[in-house]
């Protein structure tokens, strides 16, 4: 597993260099390989799917235009995540000026429609966990997502989110702690319920 990961990374870097040299098929492949992960990351910021797709198109066209200046980039995924994040936040801010949404909404709250929703299995636990994750500050949720789902390192998360490494470490530690507390509450509650129903 480790090996194949590393070799695919070497492959990606080769393709990236080819893209920087103007290879359109390498560009197409990199776009296709990264589109879905970037799209899902975008859903963390806004329920507006069209906006995300717009931003992604702008992002890729922009990197195509400045491809010659991008050959120094070694960490491709964090670079793309960071670019998308900046574009999206800028566009959401601009929109919110027009639609009279408070500016802070963008930074501090994820709208209720967006996607920190936990699915299935034990409904009650899931429900409690959903509340728990919803209760976390937005940036903690984002750091957790990047760490666990996207497997980025502390340094990479720091780059993407424009934070110090230590801040990332704190976010992650605090976030996990909160989630575990909620989970334990839920587990105790469940155990109580089953005790009660036994009598």
């Amino acid at each position: 597993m480790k090996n194949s990961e590393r070799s695919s990374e070497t492959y990606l870097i080769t393709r990236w260099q080819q893209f920087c040299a103007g290879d359109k098929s390498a560009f197409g492949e990199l776009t296709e390989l990264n589109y879905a992960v970037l799209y899902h990351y975008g859903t963390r910021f806004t329920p507006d799917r069209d906006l995300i797709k717009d931003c992604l198109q702008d992002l890729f066209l922009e990197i195509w235009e400045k491809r010659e200046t991008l050959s120094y980039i070694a960490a491709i995924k964090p670079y793309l995540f960071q670019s998308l994040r900046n574009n999206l936040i800028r566009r959401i801010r601009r929109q919110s000026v027009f639609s009279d949404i408070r500016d802070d909404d963008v930074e501090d709250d994820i709208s209720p429609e967006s996607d920190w929703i936990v699915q299935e299995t034990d409904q009650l636990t899931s429900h409690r966990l959903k509340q728990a994750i919803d209760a976390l500050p937005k940036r903690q949720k984002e750091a957790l997502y990047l760490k666990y789902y996207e497997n980025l390192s502390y340094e990479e998360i720091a780059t993407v989110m424009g934070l110090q490494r230590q801040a990332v470490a704190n976010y992650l530690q605090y976030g996990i702690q909160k989630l575990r507390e909620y989970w334990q509450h839920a587990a105790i509650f469940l155990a109580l319920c089953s005790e009660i129903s036994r009598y």
Partner: protein
Amino acid sequence: MNNYSHFQVKDWLDDAAFQRWVYHGEQDGFWIEFVQNNPGQLSNIEQAREILLAVRGELDALPDSEVKLRVSEILNAIPDEKLRALPWWKSNWLKMAAMLLLASGIVTALFREKESLHSLQTFVAGLRDADNADQLEVYNETHAIQLVNLPDGSSVILKKHARISYPAAFAADRRQVTLRGEAFFEVVKNPDQPFFVYAGSMVTKVKGTSFSIKANDEDDNVELVVKTGLVEVSASKDGGKSEISAGKKLILKPNEQVTFNRKSQNMVTKTVQKPILLNLPAESQNFEFRRTPLAEVFAELEKIYGIRIQFDAKTIAHCTLTAKLGDEPVHEKLDLICAVVNARYETHGSSTVVVASEGCE
């Protein structure tokens, strides 16, 4: 084989293989068996799994087919490098055909009699004159919007990746431009010299109005919506400069929108609440000002036309504007404003305006 039996929740969360199972279902068989054989770890695993799923949240279904579609859209939206440079032999099929014809003509002529070389030279010179030697093209490659001032003073706001070509001087009886992409027009009124826009095999004829056109190469349709005045649209025979075909012709009024299909040349009209097609500020601004500080008026114009207006904030601090400007091009608007507030203006390049005022004490 491993030390999984001593794992705590935190260890599970950080275990890459475990993550891949939870998120991507990898090695499902192994993990199901592991859970069965290690009942002591069940609660830790359950907890870690729940937490990982909560962290991910719900994901949209995004089928590969959609990703492929989006990627091809992106690839198609890459501006054609060749068009940017416009090498002579790629600029136009007609021209190329003419060149071939000419070349074969030269060969035949040379073959026949050598003295004809002189007459050929005159012929070539004549051809060059006819071939719109002074055609200009503006391509908005980088800016969100870019203002183009046409030779007659009309304004065109090009959106990104739009291009317009027009002659350095318009013919006496007609003003003719070619558009690709999305743009908003404010045309100087001149009934004697109608204004024609050729966009994706649709011809738009106006005498002096404002309207938006969306004519992207990759779209099957060309769209137009009228903000003010009257607009006449029809199909052009060959997408070129030929006369408007006698057939389909439509007159559109303000807030009417037409969708023109390039292939079938069908036109569908509808009435819209607001003449907004391109989401440009110019489309929705009605240019009504009531005791508005001049600096604000200028800021508004800067935003709408993507230009820079330089002025001395101190001298115009007391100037306000009460006026209802309409669909005039930017220069006519500036003329009107400057007349009211006792100022003069100069343009520097296509996008900078310098206003000099004596103030309004």
